[in-house]
């Protein structure tokens, strides 16, 4: 048997704590810190930000993005993407409106809408996994198709007369607190998603699939089934978001949630989720969503124009990818300089 030194690494120069920290600070943590800083600053310096009503507005408006960001994160981690989420939400809202107009009870309509979301997700998933089409292409197609069906279903109608207790649930908040009712189920879903992604074999499989699909298949992971289930989940949550949207804004129209996919993707990207798959955390994604939402709220309160807000969003996105990169290069360069100083070449033993 070889001696112990061959099994473990030969004792090496330990990098100073700071350098190790530099490597360890991941972007999602940084987004979290950024979010906290922003919140603290806003509470102290921005008029009208800290009151319960504004916070409930903020959360209520961010919820649709946050909701869809949950399954989207899982999907992106597995290496796929779904651009049809906004349309699925729109379709679900449109169907909800049409069925309500047709006289069905809301208790019967909502499950049907969710089922519809499952079907939408299933179509995406089957096209991707069975035909082997790229998800980007498929969901660009279904994005148009679902939106189109919504338009056919509801036409130019705008349905607003849903039962008040549902509308109140959609837009109201718990007592005088800043917590909208809808935040409660969201928190539950968030917890479920965090556990699934970060503490179950399913989550591990998602990461493996995203980072190396072939290797995952060779490890006995049922890659296709996994991806299919992720598409279905995304469809389901999108439909749920569509229902929430219609209730929150008390309006079911075929063009509800148009462009939502871009907001979701921007937020998720900001949270450090890698679109090549296999990297990212849910914490980062949710921090990204909240950061964008809060920033928008604060900028509106401080009378920053819509145009400037767009620029700020863009700059933030660019920084979000450049900053960790630049940070790593700086710390690497520093480490290199240090080792160069430390190394003393041993004299070669020649026989």
């Amino acid at each position, binding site marked *: 048997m070889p001696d112990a030194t061959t099994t473990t690494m030969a004792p090496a120069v330990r990098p100073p704590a700071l350098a190790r920290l530099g490597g360890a600070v991941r972007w999602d943590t940084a987004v979290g810190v950024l979010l906290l800083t922003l919140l603290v600053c806003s509470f102290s310096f921005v008029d009208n930000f800290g009151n319960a009503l504004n916070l409930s507005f903020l959360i209520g408006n961010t919820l649709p993005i946050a909701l869809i960001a949950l399954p989207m994160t899982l999907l992106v981690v597995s290496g796929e993407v779904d651009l049809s989420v906004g349309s699925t939400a729109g379709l679900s809202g449109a169907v909800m409106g049409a069925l309500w107009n047709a006289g069905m009870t809301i208790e019967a309509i909502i499950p049907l809408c969710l089922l519809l979301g499952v079907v939408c997700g299933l179509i995406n998933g089957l096209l991707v996994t069975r035909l082997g089409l790229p998800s980007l292409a498929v969901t660009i197609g279904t994005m148009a198709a679902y939106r189109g069906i919504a338009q056919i279903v509801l036409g130019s109608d705008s349905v607003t007369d849903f039962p008040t207790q549902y509308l109140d649930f959609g837009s109201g908040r718990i007592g005088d607190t800043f917590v909208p009712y809808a935040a409660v189920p969201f928190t539950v879903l968030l917890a479920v998603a965090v556990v699934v992604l970060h503490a179950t074999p399913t989550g591990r499989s998602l*990461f493996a699939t995203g980072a190396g699909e072939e290797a995952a298949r060779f490890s006995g992971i049922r890659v296709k089934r996994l991806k299919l289930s992720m598409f279905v989940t995304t469809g389901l949550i999108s439909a749920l978001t569509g229902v929430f949207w219609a209730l929150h804004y008390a309006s079911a129209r075929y063009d509800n949630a148009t462009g939502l996919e871009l907001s979701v993707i921007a937020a998720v990207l900001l949270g450090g989720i890698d679109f090549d798959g296999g990297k990212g955390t849910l914490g980062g994604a949710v921090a990204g969503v909240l950061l964008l939402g809060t920033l928008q709220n604060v900028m509106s309160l401080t009378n920053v124009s819509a145009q400037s807000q767009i620029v700020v969003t863009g700059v933030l996105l660019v920084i979000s990818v450049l900053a960790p990169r630049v940070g790593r290069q700086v710390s690497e360069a520093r480490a290199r300089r240090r080792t160069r100083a430390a190394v003393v*070449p041993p004299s070669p033993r020649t*026989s």
Partner: protein
Amino acid sequence: MKHPEPETTPVLELEGVSKSFGAVRALRGVSLRLYAGEAHALAGENGAGKSTLIKVLAGVHRPDTGTVLLDGEPVGFHGPADARDAGVAVIYQEPTLFPDLSVAENIFVGRQPRRSFGRVDHRAVRRATAELFERLGVDLDPDRPARGLSIADQQLVEIAKALSFDARVLIMDEPTAALTGSEVARLFGVVRTLRSQGAAVLFISHRLEEIFALCRRVTTLRDGALISSEPLEGLSEDDLVRRMVGRDLDDLYPKQRTEIGEVALGVRRLTREGVFTDVSFEVRRGEIVGLAGLVGAGRSELARAVFGVDRFDGGEVEVLGRRLRTGAPSAAMAAGLALVPEDRRAQGLVMDMSIERNIGLTGFAATTRAGLMNRAAERDRAVDWAVRLQVKYARLAHVVGTLSGGNQQKVVLAKWLATSPQVLIVDEPTRGIDVGTKAEVHRLLSSLAAQGVAVLMISSDLPEILGMADRVLVMHEGRLTAEIPGSEATEEAVMAAATGRADRGRTAA
């Protein structure tokens, strides 16, 4: 006759080079001289720093300290392009082809022959490729895309690429790991010609006999440090091993006597159209069955179909009496089957994941409690096998892609052995593994067999097959052409069957 270092200036030289990756010091003050017309071997265990040294020479890595000298002048290679322009051709350990480009374009990318106005001469590219393949005896269509080539074919394309440079320095990092004897022989023939034309050659291999067959001088590394640099003449294989691992080597093929039991893996009339046809064989408990054949014979494809990663069109597979569905690796695993695939980077490992999690991928059943991951259990399982296979790592949480090639291979083995399989298929299990650990892997396979595991071993290393197998199956162009009992298996017999010159009478039923 001794070969003292020539008096002339070395073509390419390393002087006191060090290189660290974070906490890992891959090279520590290493020097190396390459002379025109001389083949130089680089030896060392897995993770000794050989590939890193080569990447420094090739301009991929910049050394932390030390210098690279070309014709005695210090040069600062800022990238692979600089090294290439200086006449250094490199075959890297892992093939780096462009899957979407044709084989011919792969070889000439960035330096295609041109026509007027700087336009690429596609026809000349194709012609030159065909000539190169002719020289190497490779049977590949220059127009086919590189995607889907077997590892061996990829390696051959890499070799053709390196040769096409007519370089002054030819550097080869384990070019032969996936090749069978005949291809190796061809390659050596070409390299010898180049050498005699004045090229300097640096050669890495874990097959010591190849080092002795090709090289005149050897440099040995251990843990990133230079151990020796000396002429090969007068050195024995054992001497070399001692320098590499710092101790004497045990028997390379430690075959244990085992009790051969019931049939564990039964494959009947398995066919995948266009790949392999009508393959039937059995592997019994306690038995090691070797599967030999030339590159492209379809051995790996057969293994993949048996395991369920690929679908088969006809026939059946039975593991311990349980019939397997086609295309369901999870079912195969549940039945007790494991497959160590041949391409560790694409199939064996998720390169961006940690060592721990890679090993953990096959063991969710054992490492979950109430549906949740039990990290401690996952860690224990990984540590256990990483240590048993002598994986050289700094921390289990490190990304597996930063390990040396051989150590990556060990992680793949660990990942599958940790599932305690009843039937184990290993495809090129020791590709890129150093001699010391190779013996260890062999001992492990042998003891698994002794415990009643059925082992199917695919290998292009014929001595390995002959040394380990109780029975040898031979494939040729997608068909099983011979089944030879271990005692009768000789290199000649196997090669005859592998090249289709087999005595049909002995073909398996």
